[in-house]
């Protein structure tokens, strides 16, 4: 309503300037305005439709990617992560268990920790911690040199089978015969830490 005086003034000005042709000018103005609005609407609709088509195409592409990944390894990730040590306390407990296992098997073990590597998946931070483990067989008497190899094999098997969150990268044994008394193990500790 506030625009009515302005419109009336504009109409009067048009009448004064155009004379008897003012209805033609007004008609042309009305048609041009309406046509402009209509053309703009059509263009907007086209733009929205085009963006919808692109969105559908992108979602299809992403779903194919996700579906392909799941086809390759269904729920393998959950199984894998389930065996990781849970949290910092879990990692400490894992190391203690490993040292206890070695001590029971007659080995003196010294761990050296390397630089950890972090990854993120499913809302948790996963860390891979390299551990260099120096193992020396504790002698069992003066001539107790035999049996170190068997004990070492038992220790290795126990690590590989009993500690799913530990991976062996490298093993070096030295000694002689069944008395391979010194061993160097390169291990990887896998730990999952939940993000706050």
């Amino acid at each position, binding site marked *: 309503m506030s625009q009515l005086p302005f419109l009336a003034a504009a109409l009067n000005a048009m009448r004064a300037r155009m004379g008897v*042709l003012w*209805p033609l000018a007004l*008609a042309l103005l009305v048609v041009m305005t309406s046509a402009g609005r209509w053309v703009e609407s059509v263009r907007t609709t086209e733009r929205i439709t085009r963006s919808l088509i692109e969105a559908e195409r992108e979602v299809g592409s992403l779903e194919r*990617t996700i579906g392909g990944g799941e086809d390759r390894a269904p729920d393998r990730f959950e199984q894998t992560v389930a065996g990781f040590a849970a949290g910092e306390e879990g990692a400490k407990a894992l190391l203690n268990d490993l040292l206890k296992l070695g001590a029971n098997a007659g080995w003196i073990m010294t761990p050296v920790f390397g630089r950890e590597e972090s*990854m993120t998946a499913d809302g948790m931070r996963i860390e891979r911690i390299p551990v260099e483990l120096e193992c020396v067989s504790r002698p069992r008497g003066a001539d107790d040199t035999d049996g170190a190899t068997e004990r070492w094999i038992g220790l290795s098997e126990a690590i590989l089978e009993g500690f799913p969150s530990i991976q062996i990268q490298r093993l070096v044994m030295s000694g*002689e*015969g069944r008395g391979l008394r010194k061993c160097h193990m390169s291990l990887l500790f896998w730990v999952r830490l939940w993000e706050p």
Partner: protein
Amino acid sequence: MTLKLRATPSHDPSGDVSRDRIPVICWLNGAVEVLIPGEGGRAHWKSAEPANSPDSLARAVRCIRVELGLPMTKAILVLSHGNLGLLQVETPPAPERTLQVLIAREVERQKNFSGEATWVSRPRSEEQDGSPRTVHFCPTELKGELVSLLGAIGLSLCAIVPFSEVLVNVASEIGGAVRANQLVVASLEGVVTLTLHDQGRPALHRQIQVSSSDRERVGQEIRRTLLFASQHLGLDVNELCLLGGGRWAESVEGPRKPEGLVIREGSSLGMKPWLEWISRNGVAQEMNLLAANRAEVGERPVLSPRWIRIGGASALVVALALAIALERLGAVERSTQKRLGQEQSVWAGHIEGARKAAIREEQRNVVRQKWAENQRSTCPVRLILVLGEILPEPVVLTNVQISGESNGWRVRLTGTARDRTASIPGDTLSRVNLALSESPWGWITRAGEGHAQAAQVRPQVESNWSRRLQERATAPDPGPWRFQLEGVLP
């Protein structure tokens, strides 16, 4: 209004009046006269009472028709009216359409009445291009009123001729062949007309309400007209024709008489001979305001404002209808946009979810891949146990190196003789190879054996001690026997 008709036939009114000839009705200063031409003569009637409006004119004509008992269906109307006008318009050499526009503007500017004007024009001289034009005009409303009122009594007008045009032509004819610039002054029915000719063509007409006996006033108007012609029209009048005047020449003669002006005098004129002249000549066809109206509709280059208004209003209506249709289409488009916008937001959610899922899957793949890089079997651990059983008695392992590779475990075993002094059979390593190849552990890709060399003393600086030690040195010890096995386990 009651009209008393006084029939004054020039011949027997009951005589044979031709119906083929068109009657002439003259309406001048309230007087109505009718001339009906016929083969045997002409009948002339004059109304006794004046008619001061088109309505009273129609009634007078109807009374005349009733009195005469003639089936008069067509007529020429010679008209004098206060709103009739005569103009001399200077026109440049231009196309006819342009001239029409110029004349229309001039008429619009000069007319002293409101409403639209109807006009007719003709060149004042023989030259068509660039000569001034004589223009007669009248209100369109008056013309329409006359046509409709006379049409209501069954009389169809063939022409409406301005009385001034009749006067101009009649005066010219009575004054003789006009070749010079001539001013014709004539009296008729209480008016005095002054008609100026430019080389035989009417250039100016004035009609003054004055008695023909008012000599001083007529003389004054004659002098004013001569002065106007000289100053405004550029015409030097050299002949003055006085028709029916009462000693008008005396008022012109004297010291103020223009030099070289020839004065001619003639007899007074009545209405009747003028009407006869009209019916005899074609002036009605030349300056017909009724024909001007028809020509105006068909030939005017510019549409009349009325038609422009009608066209504009029609265009406005069409435009509004079109605008409404376009607005409806726009409303449909907007509703479609709204629906598509909702779908777009839904799809945006889908895209966001799919992107998050893709990122999550990529992170999972990274963890899986890095885990799989170091996930291997326990084969090499058991291999050592197996080797302890396969290796011959005199041979022992001294070093085991197992390192993970992309395709499994790389294993390197080093051994030596248990007793360094004992002799080792030459086929020991071959038997070990054979035993391994026959077992599930056929993994060896390279095997080697030999003696380790003992270190020799090689002093960098020659001295007495070193020389004496070298002299005492015996043959070098070949060292203990050793072997090495390498291979890759899955």
